[in-house]
């Protein structure tokens, strides 16, 4: 039940950092995600969020993703989401968020899009 949540830095390529999110992205996990994203933003880097291993995303998690995306955009940074898990993808689709968020199939595509 208390599935662990973790955010790990997979790679850093140029001005872009890839964070891999794992576990339940709920109200408790959301602040951690925002904290890690803020660190990347503070360095002036772009962000690729790999959500492949997110088993559950609640409204708080969605809120965190949206807030991160907005914060990066305000500073002229880029956030791309990649490798959405089924649950994440279906929620995004449910809320029509796939129309607004930049979503890629895999990390390479995201990196290529960011570095373009």
């Amino acid at each position: 039940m208390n599935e662990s949540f973790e955010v790990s830095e997979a790679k850093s390529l140029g001005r872009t950092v890839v964070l891999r999110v794992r576990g339940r992205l709920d109200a408790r996990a959301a602040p951690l995600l925002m904290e890690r994203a803020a660190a990347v933003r503070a360095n002036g880097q772009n962000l690729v969020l790999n959500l492949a291993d997110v088993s559950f995303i609640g409204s708080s998690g969605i809120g965190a993703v949206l807030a991160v995306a907005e914060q990066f955009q305000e500073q002229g940074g880029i956030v791309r989401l990649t490798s959405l898990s089924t649950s994440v993808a279906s929620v995004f689709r449910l809320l029509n968020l796939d129309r607004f968020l930049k979503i890629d199939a895999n990390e390479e595509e995201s990196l290529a899009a960011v570095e373009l």
Partner: protein
Amino acid sequence: MKASSPVKSVFGIRWIVTFAAVALITVVVLSLGAVHERNVRETLTSEIENRILLSARNLALISASALLGNYPELTLHPLLKEMQASRPELAVTTVVDVSGVIQGDTDVRKVGEKYVPPDGLKPLPRVPGQGTDELLVENDELLVARVTVRSSAGQRLGTASVGIRREYITRTIGRVRFQQIPILISLLAAGIGCAFFLMSFLLRPVAALRSGIERIGNGDFDTPIRLGDRTELGLLAETVNAMASQLKIGQTEARERDRLAHEIELARRIQHSLLPTGRRTFGELVIEGAHQAATEVGGDYYDVIELPGGRVGIAIADVAGKGLAGCMVTSMLHALLHTLSEMYDSPTELLSALDARLGSMLERGRFVSMFYGVLVPETGRIVYASAGHCPLLIYRGATKTVEWQYTEGIPLCAIRGGVVRKTLRDVTVEVGPGDVLVQYTDGINEATDASGSEQFGFEQIERVVQAAGSGGPAAVLDALQQAVESWRGGSSPEDDETLLVIARSEAQVRDRSSEPAGARTAGAQYAEAQNAGAGSAAAEAARRGLERLVEARQQGRRLVLPATIDSLGLIRGWIGSCPHLEDLPADQLEILHLALYEACANVAEHAYHENPRREYELWWVPPNGPPPASGKPGGEDRGAPHHTVVGEGFFLLRDDGAAYRADNWHESDFSDRAVWRRGRGFGRDIIQRVMDEVAYYPATREGNIVVMTFDPSESLGELRDSETRNSDHERVL
């Protein structure tokens, strides 16, 4: 262009006095001159009369011997010539014999002629020393003395006449008058000089006095007028100085009064701002107050406080003593009451706590009479305690009678050291349909009539309430206010007049009585307040929610969850056990799970604040049709699309926690970056998009109920377009 202001001409006192002195001196001198002239004239006339009489007498003596001779004219002529030469003023010097012939005259041609006396001669009154042969006669031009000439033997020989022109007398007097003119002028000059000098000397302090008074007029009360004058002007200056001192004291006092009046006005505004305004409605109970402030800042206070659990605190108090101190005590009372009212359920306990706290702050001799009650709108019951406050008057709607309730409590802080507590007790009053409770301060019952001799009194309060009670709280309030106002006869109230009525309306009671009896949730009052004015619609909605609950209890599958976020993980397994749901495609299951997760998270967070000791229920009531034959995971039709229409089922959430407003939710617009920045509040979006309909029934007698309609046969993949989902829900959403 210079504006000219009319200047009043000023007449100098010294000039007025000088002119007056000159006029006076002139009058005096002229009067004296006139008297003097008259005296001179009389004296001179008398003197001249005597002189011509003497001259005539002498001429008669001399003429006697001449008239006895043969040629008297030879003797008389030289004599008369000499006489006229030495006395030129003499106009007549004639000697006539007994036959009336002129024998001697200064004009020699007249000798020998018959004597013709001048016309109009009249005899004058005799003067002292005038002889019998002597006569004084006069006309307008002449004054003549006639003396008979006699021989030594006494024989009459003739008449000697000596005359003088009157003109001579006038000329002589004129000469005397002319001599007086320099004296008159000298006297006038001396008078003018003296008057001017004297007036200048005497009036010199007037200028100093004037400038001093002008200084005072400009507000300088500190510089006294120093004259050093021992006349009445000096006394006047001292009087003006004393007046300036008094004015200064008066001005200081006036400023102080103004400042105090300003402070009092501010205090009055602050005090007034502490009092609630308008009518307050709690379910079927209505509380309404009225406050009429006295001219001075009074110490009345009343308040209506919403307490946890839907209860309502009602306070009315009167601080002994008016003025700013009284006003400050009411402010303290307000602050303390709002702090303590949530800590004490019992009015006695609350009043005791107030007594203890106020006692440490109030000066000795200052006390507070206070009524405090806790009203439970659901039950229409009020528990109150009264600390020396006016007795409670109750109008009973059912019997249309009034009753007084007296208590034995003494005012707060009347006796220090916790004695008050022993006198207080909680009294319970059932507020029935149509009942009106009246509380007030002593400004009402002690309002005096126009003559100031008789008080309004409790009996009149009772009569007014008895008469107006059936009209409801507003009627009672109006009637009492008008009765007291007319009792006062239009004069301002001497003390604050505060009225508070608590009433239960009959109309709303009927609505309530139609609802099932039983325990009601803590949030019931909230819902009622929200639905005030549409009570029957709210009751109807609540009934629908309760019907769904009954349905769930009969046909549904239940999950009981502790109010924690961690326990939300139980939902996924429970969904898997529910008919019609267990074999939903994985992605749809995921979405449904998310929606239920969000709905339950709302309850755990907002209704119970994640209290692990509290629980709530989640029900699934499947559609009426049979579940698909191969619903189990691993079945032969696993993964097959579910297009069979079986109708809608519903999820039902029931909790006993706090009701929350569901009617202010708006669908999130994700094209709005502000929504992204907000980063939260999307749970409702998920629920709304997953469920067909969401109905919220807060604060029913079974608690808060949420019914979420869900059709498992619809493909969640075909996402419900949010725009088509704004169906005409009649419930509060």
